[in-house]
């Protein structure tokens, strides 16, 4: 089986989807001739022509707004926002239009679009190239929110998202594009070519939305994570010697509550980890659900490890990033509680 980086897997997903369905179109800033600043769309314009893959003006609201119109016509746009940090001008189009169209028109018009965007930090991108805005989308009824953590999932989830009849926010942890980064920024990252999850089938397959995956089975404590934090959590478990069960949520909305509840009822402890800022983050929702569903099984308060409630800093990136040390401390505290 071929080995792919996450970038190659995402590109392969769009290639497969475009090859199977003429209605799939791909556009965004720099995605056409050049193939995207992260090269996720490289070669698609050459292969499918300028009317299927093209460059867009620097207008995120224009990109999303045009995609909403295209989707209402019957196309399936898979669009790129160059960085998740740039999506805010398009927020009205996403919240008031893409997410609401099916409901308000009673299904006359629908919006099967995928909005891909690189998310998260760890690349010295400062406050405008590092944010994790997933909670701004999980709060919106009508959207689906996906965060893959590896090439195999990224391709299957992206194809599933493109084939989904509703709008999907597809957040790509950019620090994982080339390898499973575990938060140890002072060490070289393993390449996906040397990792099992870098083995990606060439053709069509899907990973269903709304299904979590247990990445590290364990019995002592459940760690709920997604994106880059999946590897940080695994590293923290190894380094503390705590037998944590690490769940990769993969889809935040709709959420795989069953897998979460079954695990927490088994381990009786839970730590929630994300890179996004703490207050009103998606972790708050997870903690609520865990206590609503598992309260009488819990041996300890549910802990949260997240980005500090500051803008994403530049020079202090590794003081900000919730790395294995901070996650490890939370694991120990939760075990000792």
């Amino acid at each position, binding site marked *: 089986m071929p080995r792919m980086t996450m970038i190659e897997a995402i590109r392969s997903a769009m290639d497969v989807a475009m090859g199977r369905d003429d209605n799939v179109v791909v556009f965004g800033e720099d995605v056409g001739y050049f193939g995207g600043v992260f090269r996720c769309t490289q070669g698609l314009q050459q292969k499918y022509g300028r009317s299927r893959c093209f460059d867009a003006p620097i207008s995120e609201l224009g990109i999303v707004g045009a995609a909403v119109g295209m989707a209402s016509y019957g196309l399936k746009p898979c669009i790129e926002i160059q960085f998740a940090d740039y999506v805010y001008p398009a927020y*009205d189009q996403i919240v*008031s239009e893409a997410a609401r169209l099916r409901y*308000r028109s009673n299904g006359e018009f629908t919006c099967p679009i995928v909005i891909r965007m690189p998310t998260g930090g760890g690349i010295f991108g400062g406050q405008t190239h590092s944010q994790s805005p997933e909670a701004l989308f999980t709060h919106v009824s009508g959207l689906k929110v996906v965060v893959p953590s590896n090439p195999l999932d990224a391709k299957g989830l992206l194809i599933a998202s493109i084939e989904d009849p509703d709008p999907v926010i597809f957040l790509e942890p950019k620090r994982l594009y080339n390898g499973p980064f575990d938060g140890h920024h002072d060490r070289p990252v393993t390449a996906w070519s040397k990792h099992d999850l870098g083995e990606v089938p060439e053709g069509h397959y899907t990973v269903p939305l709304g299904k979590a995956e247990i990445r590290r089975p364990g019995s002592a404590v459940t760690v709920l994570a997604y994106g880059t934090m999946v590897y940080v959590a695994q590293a923290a478990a190894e380094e503390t010697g705590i037998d944590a069960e690490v769940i990769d949520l993969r889809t935040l909305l709709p959420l795989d509550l069953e897998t979460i509840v079954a695990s927490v009822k088994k381990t009786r402890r839970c730590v929630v980890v994300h890179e996004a800022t703490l207050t009103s983050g998606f972790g708050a929702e997870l903690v609520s659900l865990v206590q609503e569903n598992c309260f009488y099984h819990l041996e300890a308060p549910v802990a949260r490890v997240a980005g500090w409630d500051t803008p994403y800093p530049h020079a202090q990136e590794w003081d900000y990033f919730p790395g294995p040390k901070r996650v490890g401390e939370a694991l120990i505290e939760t075990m000792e509680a």
Partner: protein
Amino acid sequence: MTDNPSPLKFHVPEPEVRPGGTPDFSNVPIPKAGSVDRPPVDVDPRTIRDLAYSIIRVLNREGDAVGPWAGTLTDEEQLEGLRHMMTLRTFDARMQMAQRQGKTSFYMQHMGEEAVSCAFRKALNKGDMNFPTYRQAGLLIAGGYPMVDMMNQIYSNEKDPLKGRQLPIMYSAKEHGFFSISGNLTTQYIQAVGWAMASAIKGDTKIAVGWVGDGATAESDFHAALVFASTYRAPVVLNVVNNQWAISTFQGIARGGSGTFAARGLGFGIPALRVDGNDYLAVHAVAKWAAERARSNLGPTLVEYVTYRVGAHSTSDDPSAYRPKTESDAWPLGDPVIRLKNHLIRRGLWSDDRHKQTEAEILETVIAAQKEAESHGTLHAGGKPSTRDMFEGVYAEMPAHLRRQRQKAGV
């Protein structure tokens, strides 16, 4: 460096007249009907920049149709157009009253602007798609959409095609080329461009139409729409209905230093026309010109309809608080229904008696539709959409968390 800089002055535009003053439109230049050239549709946009500052008019003061833009409609079509405008006006009056009677929460009428959407609709083909605002119901009336379905939506009753989920008059009628109205302003303008791009991508023959009011042109979506339409030469007609008032804010606040709203198109290389929005024949002629451009792969056209919002913005608005009560009487472009009526009478195709008789017939038809709609309920009485309907349609398939919430709601 200047040694003695003078203090900077902050400028806030104000309309000429406020309540208590005498309405004055002397600063609105009205060119004579028939005086504006009609260029070929494949004209180089750079050579018709003056059209963005003039007003294309067909019906003159005497009621004659004159000039190069006249003659796009047959007698029968003109008579039908008059009937559509009269129907919309009667429909509005009845629904306005129904709102006052508590049968619905909200209504928005078209008084004075009937020609714009009614005439525009007649320039479109089946399959073309409008992305309307809340003041283009003439697209539905003139397109043959059943009035009773409009009323069912307004009443949010058990037959509401939108299941009670959307504010009154935010219709959706795909088969009639009428995109779901959002309620947020200008969002649909760029969507119209996207729809048109899709039609071109697929090699289709359908065109799209974007609609926006004068005030909402200030939204960034307007700029995005013009950029995308210009860049991809989208088969779209971009309409700006300038009815002079954005709720209480006069059009000068959105227009700023630009001469006209049409002129916004010039920097994008988009042909820009201004038309007398109270002149059914002129609106149709310009709509036809712009639609033909779109259909011929010549790209977008920006059209500004110069009109006047005679009524309140909505049932929640009272214009006497911000403009003279008699301002609409002073509006120099007159009333669209009366102008077309006079034209048809002058040509011997119509009479005052037939007009009165038709008014009575229309009223009867509208009342009959209203009775039927009310038999299916009004907002606070009779049949209404179910609580179950509230949970449906958020997604194609209901996810588990919504199923749990629906159970909790006891449905």
